[in-house]
């Protein structure tokens, strides 16, 4: 097993290198380029443009640009944002905790809601409960997320008021109330709506996975055997069936985890949450090479890492799987 992990980690190095080359090339062909922001301004003379292009290193041939970037990365220098001039890692460092907080909490509530509901819905297949859950799950997946966020704000911020204070029931934006000292309660109050939005959308998918995985297992022979032995139904379901039904769901969860670092653009935009999704979007708009490369490469590394983690978890959970 240790050998396997080492081999996989070594394989990741050329993979990351290939990804970096492809992403770097793709960024270079984005129409407009980083100078597009200056093009419209008549006060910026062609001489200014040439000077800025030179300063930003945009005039070098692509391979020189790439080698410069690679050299800096190998020395641990991720460069500076073209737009804000701040170090790339500082920009990411400002946003990442916010994203992890929001996405982490939303991920946990999603799991907490969807797995029990999925199990229950499988056990009571074609019951009213199952139909209602299925409908809600599909609605959650098909409502435009942007629209749903606005509706949440319209109802819980604009429409409903706290009967005691007369203020909006939940805030529409940000992480904390401006001008007040920080308190965890205030932060939690600000998280209610975005977490609700993310949970509804995530839960639909997981509920469906859990349900179908459970359905598959409870019709297998060994479950019948367990029942025939006279085991209690609870033991049959939660010990024998769940352990096997959980396998594919665990894999999916592990593969979804790197997505938490990328943030959720729509949720962050609607609720003005200062997270990674908006950082990435802004960087893409400005064709901010250093920022884009950093965010994409970190994501690529995380995806590779969590894939490995999923494989390891799989071997641990399913004794039939051996990698050696």
């Amino acid at each position: 097993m240790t050998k396997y992990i080492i081999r996989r980690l070594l394989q990741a190095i050329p993979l990351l290198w290939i990804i970096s080359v492809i992403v770097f090339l793709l960024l270079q062909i984005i129409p407009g380029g980083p100078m597009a922001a200056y093009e419209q301004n008549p006060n910026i003379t062609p001489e200014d443009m040439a000077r800025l292009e030179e300063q930003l290193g945009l005039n070098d041939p692509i391979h020189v640009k790439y080698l410069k970037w690679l050299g800096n990365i190998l020395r641990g220098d991720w460069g500076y944002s073209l737009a804000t001039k701040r170090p790339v890692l500082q920009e990411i460092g400002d946003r990442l905790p916010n994203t992890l907080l929001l996405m982490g909490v939303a991920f946990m509530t999603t799991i907490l809601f969807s797995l029990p509901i999925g199990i229950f819905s499988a056990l009571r297949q074609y019951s009213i409960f199952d139909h209602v859950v299925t409908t809600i799950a599909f609605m959650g997946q098909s409502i435009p997320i942007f629209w749903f966020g606005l509706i949440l704000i319209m109802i819980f911020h604009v429409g409903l008021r706290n009967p005691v204070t007369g203020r909006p029931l939940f805030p529409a934006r940000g992480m904390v109330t401006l001008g007040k000292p920080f308190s965890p309660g205030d932060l939690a109050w600000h998280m209610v709506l975005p977490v609700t939005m993310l949970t509804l959308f995530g839960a639909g998918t997981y509920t469906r996975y859990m349900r179908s995985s459970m359905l598959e297992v409870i019709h297998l022979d060994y479950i019948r055997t367990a029942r025939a032995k006279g085991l209690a139904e609870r033991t049959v379901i939660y010990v024998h069936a769940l352990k096997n039904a959980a396998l594919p769901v665990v894999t999916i969860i592990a593969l979804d985890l790197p997505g938490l670092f990328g943030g959720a653009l729509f949720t962050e935009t609607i609720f003005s949450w200062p997270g990674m999704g908006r950082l990435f979007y802004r960087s893409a708009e400005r064709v901010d090479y250093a920022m884009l490369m950093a965010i994409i490469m970190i994501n690529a590394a995380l995806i590779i890492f969590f894939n490995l983690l999923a494989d390891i978890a799989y071997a641990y959970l399913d004794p039939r799987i051996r990698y050696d």
Partner: protein
Amino acid sequence: MRTSRLWTVLSFFVVLSVVLVACAPAAQAPSGGKAAPETGQKAGEAAAPAAEEGPKHGGTITFALYQEPEILNPALCTQTACDEVDEFILEAPLGVDPDGHFFPILAKEVPTRENGGVSEDGLTITVHFKEGIKWSDGQPFTSDDLKFTWEATMHPDSGAVSTTGWQDIESIETPDDTTAIIKFKKFYAPYLALLTYSILPRHATGDPANMPKWDFNWHPIGTGPFMMKEWVSGDHITLVKNPNYRDAPEKPYLDGINVIITPSREVGKAMIQTGDIDILWDLVEADIPEFQKMDGVVLSAPPDTGTERLLLNLADPTIDATDDPLHHPHWALGDLRVRQAIQYGIDKAKINDDLLYGKATLGTSELNLGWAKCDIPVSEYNPDKARQLLKEAGWIDQDGDGIRECHGCANAKEGQPLRLKIQTTSGNKLREQVEQLLVEMMKDIGIDLYIENVPSSVLFGSWASGAFRKHGHFDILMYTTTYGVDPQAHMEGYFASWNIPTKANGGRGFNYSRWIDEEADAAIKEAGSSPDLNERKAAYQRLCERIAAGLPHIYLYDRLELNAYRTRLHGWVDNNWMDIGWNAEDWWVSQ
């Protein structure tokens, strides 16, 4: 309270319906065309309801931007959002008032020939600053800071985005702390506009060679009424009253301004309704009906210097960036009569009434506002004349399909149909609707106009990226450009024959129409070589007349600068030459 509850429920449905029928806005605008009584107020009127109380001290307002400033050093910033925030913190020697005239801020007076501020040859400008001005950290402001601003901007490693004007300065002398003598290498006509750039403090910045790494970039220190307290990336910037402001403690009246980032404009609209925010920045024309009906909110809608226009390509679109449009004319638009016919065929008043609720002024010229404003009459809507002109130009519909073909026209193949492409930025609802009206209007005179919109990054792409606008591969473009208080760089960039982007000049210039007019060139040169504003104004008038005659651009309507604020905010004065907070020291709140 009851009415506001009712209102929140109503507004919920309004926004719901906006979201639902986003593609069909005409249906939900029954009050279109009717001007709201509360829009476009000037200072006195805005403050009128509480005038007897007079300004009050205290209070904090919330100003929502949907775009976050990237950086707050004015020499490095390229966004409007950063100017909007800087306006509260930093100051310049001069400002521009709502009528487009210069007024002193840090300077004692506007330098002119009469007061000895401008030498006879226009090469030496003397600026006298007000006495006793301090930076917000308590350090004295001196004329040396102006000198530093010039040095920093011109330093080759500073990364300053624009050196226009600054590069024409030969030296700045500072005989004493309140006097700066600026000597120019050559005459620079917009010298007053140069003095509207914010001053950087020498003591609170750093080495110009290191400008991109200055701490000042994220924590600017200025002489303005407010100073920065905190910037939380992606969330908010808190500004508080500057205790060292020159009119303190009388002004500013407000204790502070919270600049918050709400990336969704829809959420911003909901929040100004509930009173969570006091100022909502940069609305679009389609928002007008919603805001006209909103309780407790004033829609500020002064005209902007931007005019939405059709930019016609006079050169052969199949040739890459030709420098000789006269010998390689556009197959249809190269003929002046076709361009005239298009203008006669456009009902500009209908566009304004149907799509802009009658609030815009009709487009006539490039210079629609300010001291240099041109006086050009609105073009006539006359489809008969348009048809007549097209017939004369050899464009006749013989096959009866409603589209004219070339039968003896000047530059096209015999039988070629008059089919022209119009392009603008995709995703802009108003522009798409204008295009549809134009398609109908052109169909009426026998021109088949077809739409092919592209993302703005593609339309406004660089020469190096091969953007079709720069390289001349288009028929008609539709967009807006704006100019600052001194229009020289703008007019020269767009209309001088030496500013046609070609391979030879590396794609410099904005004369995308590839329009060549000797008289226009002469007028541009004259406007750029006189220190006398009246002489320059006359030259611009001649230039505008040449543009109206030659029609490289057809002006549709003047854009509005739309912002909204809550009625509890007093002292707001519309001024499209500066940013919203240009008079923030006079703002106060009534509750």
